């Protein structure tokens, strides 16, 4: 669907798992919140009447429902994390950005239009776990795509540079035959807001 006929995948650049784990703090906190509240009430001077068996089962029931909602939330975060990806093909970089469940943006930059590839690693954790931000700048309209929290950004940059070099070598050899073709297939970008 995303790839053109006959187009092959050279590499997939994804986000680091730490980016996903980092975003789990809210569901984890909400999962333990009822325990914190119960613990707080038990420690406070407020005395609550001794819980009957019925109340205990109601509490278990409500907590199970609460966890179901949070469980779904965790996997919505995973969806957002896993479906944000760069697909590298011999001709272009396809940037897929998932936003929630019903919105995704797909844009691509052809290698012949790539002007600059930058990696950015900030912080101790990012340095130790090898993740960072990848920026690719395109020529002409000065458009930029970026993938935050990309795993092994320097290796990804190497792959991109290799592809870029191959495209440049190919274009160098076939320049007479292909003159003017570079701009015909300029950057394709479209937005898809559907299921």
């Amino acid at each position: 669907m995303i790839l053109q006929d006959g187009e092959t995948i050279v590499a997939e650049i994804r986000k680091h798992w730490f980016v996903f784990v980092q975003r789990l703090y809210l569901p984890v906190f909400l999962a333990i919140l009822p325990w914190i509240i119960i613990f707080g009430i038990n420690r406070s001077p407020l005395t609550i009447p001794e819980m009957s068996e019925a109340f205990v089962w109601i509490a278990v029931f409500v907590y199970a429902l609460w966890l179901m909602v949070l469980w779904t939330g965790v996997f919505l975060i995973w969806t957002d994390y896993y479906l944000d990806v760069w697909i590298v093909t011999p001709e272009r970089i396809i940037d897929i950005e998932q936003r929630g469940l019903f919105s995704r943006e797909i844009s691509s930059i052809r290698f012949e239009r790539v002007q600059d590839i930058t990696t950015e690693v900030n912080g101790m954790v990012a340095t130790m776990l090898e993740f960072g931000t990848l920026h690719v700048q395109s020529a002409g309209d000065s458009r930029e795509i970026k993938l935050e929290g990309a795993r092994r950004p320097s290796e990804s940059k190497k792959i991109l540079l290799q592809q870029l070099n191959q495209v440049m070598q190919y274009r160098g050899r076939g320049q007479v035959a292909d003159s003017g073709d570079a701009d015909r297939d300029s950057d394709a970008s479209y937005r898809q807001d559907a299921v």
Partner: protein
Amino acid sequence: MMNNADFVIIQLLTPRTLSGVLAFLVLALVSVTVVMIYHWRQYGRRTRPVKIVSIVYIAGHAALIIIAGMALLKYSAVV
């Protein structure tokens, strides 16, 4: 022993009402699940992580539904 608070809770939260709540939530989650797994398969292209995550997700929900159902049965038996 039942106290006043328990009495109020039991009057409001009958097993029937709670079953309705559970059914509603399960239906809502099933619809979200269908969309989510469709996305994973469509755009994640049925890779190994997608398969593993689908199994973990469904297994987690199944376990929680069973726990909620059992708690509801126990509650029904008590009231």
